[in-house]
């Protein structure tokens, strides 16, 4: 569904962030992209929806070549790629509802969006999504009144209301505590399964990634070093991606998943 061909990005400073990356993601697959800081994970994700303009190479989404589109067609193509950000990237002075509805900007005209007169179907869908992530009563709060985990849930709603085929997720848990991180990752993966979405998730936390995804891609110095199922992440592989370190802890770190799950559900029920 998504195909990258020799995708290359060289920044004006001369840094080569991506070196001819080839990657194919089938529909409905959730993929974790791991690698050290500066390996080019963020650049890779941003090259797919061209927030960063790739230097060369091609991006195919379905049968559309994203890298060839003009600005109007690119905007229409971006509607099919929902994005979730590290620091949530909500517009802080807008309400939760406005933030969610901003996911529909690609579908409505300027005046409708300016006057906040969205079609009823969009408004209903926004409420449905907010209910799904447990934030229905927050709809008219301002985004900066929310906690980190709540903000990221709003970010997820904004991405999903676009009705995307693909989610681009950039370090969704980097500024969250361990428990909220798990909840957010679980939510993202559940929603992808419910809606049959493919997703690329940039993530620092290897142990967390292994809990939730079907496929792991390791990036180092802008090139793919590893591509396989999470079970195949051995200490040797991690050393290859990140460099020398004692990896046994990271790999065995799948301890009380059961407890964690129950706890989260109990909390969910309590709310």
């Amino acid at each position: 569904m998504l195909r990258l061909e020799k995708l290359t990005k060289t920044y004006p400073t001369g840094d080569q962030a991506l070196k001819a990356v080839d990657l194919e993601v089938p529909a409905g697959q959730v993929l974790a992209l791991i690698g050290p800081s500066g390996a080019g994970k963020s650049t890779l994700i941003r090259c797919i929806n061209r927030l960063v303009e790739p230097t060369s190479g091609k991006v195919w989404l379905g049968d559309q070549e994203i890298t060839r589109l003009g600005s109007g067609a690119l905007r229409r193509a971006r509607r099919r790629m929902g994005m979730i950000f590290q620091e949530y990237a909500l517009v802080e002075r807008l309400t939760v509802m406005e933030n969610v509805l901003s996911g529909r900007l690609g579908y409505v005209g300027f005046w409708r969006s300016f006057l906040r007169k969205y079609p009823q179907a969009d408004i209903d869908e926004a409420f449905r999504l907010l209910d799904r992530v447990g934030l229905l009563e927050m709809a008219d709060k301002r985004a900066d009144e929310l906690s980190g985990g709540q903000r990221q849930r709003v970010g997820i709603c904004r991405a999903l209301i676009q009705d995307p085929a693909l989610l681009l997720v950039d370090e969704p848990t980097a500024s969250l505590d361990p428990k909220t991180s798990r909840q957010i990752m679980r939510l993202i993966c559940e929603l992808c399964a419910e809606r049959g979405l493919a997703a690329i998730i940039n993530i620092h936390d290897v142990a967390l990634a292994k809990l939730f995804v079907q496929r792991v891609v390791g990036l180092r110095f802008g090139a793919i070093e590893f591509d396989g199922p999470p079970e195949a992440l051995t200490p040797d592989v991690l050393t290859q991606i990140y460099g020398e370190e004692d990896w046994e802890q990271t790999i065995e770190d799948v301890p009380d998943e059961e407890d964690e799950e129950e706890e989260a559900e109990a909390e969910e029920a309590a709310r």
Partner: protein
Amino acid sequence: MSATATASELDLLLGRKWKKPPFIKRPWLRWGLIVGAGIYLALAISSVPVNWARVYEGLERGAAFIAAFTSPDFVSRWNDIYHGMMESLIMTVAASVVGILISIPIGLGAARNIAPLPVYMICRGIVAVSRALQEIIVAILLVAIFGFGPLAGFLTLSFASIGFMSKLLAEDIESMDRVQAEAIKATGASWLQWINYGVQPQVMPRLVGLSMYRLDINFRESAILGLVGAGGIGATLNTAFDRYEFDTAAAILILIIGTVMALEYLSGIIRAKVQ
């Protein structure tokens, strides 16, 4: 190996006093600048001529002026004062509204992070011209073109507002949070939608605060512009001085001060509301 090297380095430092490294490293340059600045200051102060006899005479006139404040005369020229005041207020509000409306697109264009280079250069050029020409000079020119009266004042203040507002708005846009705007772009928003959702909410409080501040500045400027014939309360004030009617002048100044303070108070309330 490096451990022993570090250890001996550490031994050298232990027990020594620590001082913040000076901002200018070369001692001769540092002391040269300090001494040079001192000499310049002494020379500059000693070169300002002061005629103490004249000052002594002037004190009396100053006292008369200040004494007039104790008995401001609002009544005998009330008609002139009222018309001057209304003219100033109309001029101020109209010029602020027009100036702010024009400065928004120019401010957007003058922000490097959202405007392409050619647009940026043009908008920065407009800002530079508007800021380089002092209000009084513009007013003199416009009075020459449009004749005496508030029209020249209105145009002058609009022109000056554009430079001020555009520059500060552009700087606020340049320092906004890039990621929030990026997120809106990623949804497939058009350029206008992007500005409306990704940029405007971030700069709105500053825009409102600046607008109130500019309204305040424009009112104070309108009092000055009257001196060169551009209408408003300044013209009335000028006339009062020319006639040595210090009590009427005092009344006008009190009104100006009162209005500025009222505007200041209002802008404080509004800024607190839009945060």
